[in-house]
């Protein structure tokens, strides 16, 4: 953990408020500065209201050319509305959407350089695979010979050449998805929009499809914005992702960065599972937290000099906690609890440990660790949890 990052986090520790106010303006994009020149797609102060409800609440983001960008959030967080505004299917209440510096606001849907792959694919049921894929080119009045060549090319790309005369209902879910992809790629859009691309697939083929889809998109080199509620999907496919909550972007960053260094409780909890604790910075010592949840003082990696006496939240991932049968002398961060529940998850075992303070903590324990113990762990057995100082991520909201 480098100092620059912890400094950034500390800079956000703002006891006075939400952290959303910045020089009187709402701004959520701490990680990525607004750099007009290099950004392929730019979204500036975008707002969408449905009556009194605000679906998208001042969103700013930029997507680089060729990037696969994911909007991640639970249902109703505004991510789909944001995507639909990019496609032109919803009109923004205010704000701008720019592609290569060109404002899309006045452009009707059918003229936009964007294409969308719809959630349930929205393939035309009365047309063959071929006709579905060719539809976009027909609207552009592309010559028949060119059209056929391009249809063949894109069907080849998604490996659906053999099914070109079939109707959509004669295809499996995965095949339908590939046709939908071909249909949205054939016009060579500047920006491809993917609305929950995997949600209509079985869990089993979803993982494989994630890689396939990712590979095709990489091969084409198209810039993508993808909407998903599935964090695994966002993590495996996206170059960068934005976590959204209640119409706002909570955090933007590369998947591993958002996972390792979430900037708030929501992001920490939404990306992967985590243990959230509340603590108070001690008055006299700037690098120690009092934590009522763990029942032990928590040593921080670096000093937090200006925030003494304030309450902060921090997270420790389940895989960052180690379990032991006896207190480890050398470790400063250690807490005692009892095994309340455990579940075998295959590659690891998930333990729920009831701390002495009553707080329930999740711990992932690898098989190797379990083997190293001299007996099999049992319910209510007392254990000790320990962690490194750099496993902690602190946030103020």
């Amino acid at each position, binding site marked *: 953990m480098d100092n620059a990052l912890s400094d950034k986090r500390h800079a956000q520790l703002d006891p006075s408020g939400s952290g959303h106010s910045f020089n009187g303006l709402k701004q959520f994009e701490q990680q990525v500065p607004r750099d007009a020149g290099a950004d392929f797609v730019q979204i500036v102060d975008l707002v969408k209201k449905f009556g009194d409800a605000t679906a998208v609440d001042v969103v700013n983001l930029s997507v680089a050319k060729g990037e696969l960008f994911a909007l991640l959030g639970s249902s109703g967080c505004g991510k789909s509305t944001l995507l639909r505004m990019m496609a032109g299917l919803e009109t923004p209440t205010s704000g701008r959407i720019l592609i290569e510096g060109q404002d899309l606001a006045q452009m009707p849907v059918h003229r936009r350089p964007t294409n969308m792959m719809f959630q349930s694919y*929205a393939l035309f049921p009365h047309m063959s695979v071929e006709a579905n894929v060719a539809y976009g080119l027909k609207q552009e009045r592309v010559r028949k010979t060119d059209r056929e060549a391009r249809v063949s090319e894109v069907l080849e790309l998604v490996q659906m050449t053999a099914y070109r005369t079939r109707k959509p*209902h004669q295809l499996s879910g995965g095949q339908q998805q590939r046709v939908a992809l071909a249909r949205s790629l054939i016009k060579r859009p500047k920006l491809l929009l993917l609305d929950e691309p995997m949600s209509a697939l079985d869990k089993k083929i979803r993982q494989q499809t994630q890689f396939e889809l990712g590979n095709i998109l990489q091969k084409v080199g198209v810039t993508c914005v993808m909407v998903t509620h599935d964090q695994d999907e966002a993590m495996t496919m996206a170059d960068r992702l934005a976590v959204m909550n209640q119409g706002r972007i909570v955090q933007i960053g590369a998947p591993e960065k958002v996972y390792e260094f979430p900037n708030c409780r929501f992001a920490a909890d939404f990306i992967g599972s985590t243990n959230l604790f509340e603590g108070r910075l001690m008055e006299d010592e700037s690098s120690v937290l009092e934590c009522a949840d763990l029942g032990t003082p928590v040593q921080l990696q670096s000093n937090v000099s200006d925030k003494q006496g304030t309450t902060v939240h921090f997270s420790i991932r389940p895989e960052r906690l180690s379990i032991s049968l006896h207190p480890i002398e050398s470790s400063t961060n250690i807490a005692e609890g009892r095994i309340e529940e455990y579940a075998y998850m295959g590659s690891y075992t998930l333990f729920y440990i009831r701390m002495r303070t009553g707080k329930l903590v999740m711990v992932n324990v690898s098989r190797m660790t379990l083997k190293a113990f001299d007996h099999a762990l049992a319910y209510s057995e007392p254990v000790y949890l320990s962690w490194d100082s750099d496993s902690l991520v602190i946030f103020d909201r």
Partner: protein
Amino acid sequence: MTKYFFHLIDRIKPSGRSVVIAVPFGFMLLFLMAPFLAVIKISFADLRMAIPPYSPLTSWVDGVLQIKLDFSHYGSVLSDSLYLGAYVKSVEVAVLTTFVCLLIGYPTAYLIARSNPTRRNLLMIGVMLPFWTSYLIRIYAWIGILKERGLLNSLLIWSHIIDQPLRIYHTNWGLYIGMVYSYLPYLILPLYAHLVKLDFKLLEAARDLGAKPWKVFVTVTLPLSRRGVVAGCLLVFIPAVGEYVIPALLGGADSLMIGGVMWDDFFNNADWPVAASAACAMVALLLIPMAWFQRTKMMELEGK
């Protein structure tokens, strides 16, 4: 072998399904086919002054069974300009009525299907509301509206849009207003049922792929609601051909449709055989669009 045997047993024994189908089938056979067969029988009989006013088809003469089929009524129906004119007029009125109903009904059904569910139900009640009053009373109400000193003319004169009353009552205008008014719900209902099932995402996808609004309609909305259009048009066209009440009450002297001619034959001329022939010829006429409808339906089912 045993497998085929059990299969055969399964096919012969009455299943719950065939019993359920048998009830409406029997009803149709009894109350639709039987009277229709009687009409066919009368169409081959001879006119006579008696009760009933037609001769039996079969008779015993000296131990010989004689069957006498008189085809001459069909000949006169098909050659008489009165009947031919009435048929042409009927088809003309039915086609135009269907067309106007489609012109008004399609946008109406589309808008109802696209509005939010609470308003949608309210609008559908609005479409079905006329059925709560007798058909005949509604047509009489139109006389009140359309006649020379009726509601419409009074209103137009009062508002100084016209100074002479419009002649609508007892003209083709009156006929078409009455026809379109009466048959519009029959077109809206099946069309609405199809349009409400139409996935709005498909229209968005078409727009997203670069189709202009009218192109979206022609390439996606219309093909996907075609069955609703066909069903609605037939529900209007078929009864409209045989319509009697509206041309009689609202139409003019030139609005003589086949229903009116049959009425005259049955009740004024008491010429049952000719009237029955005219009826049979009309059924034959209507079988053409129905067969076409069945064929498109079958083709669509095979396509799926």
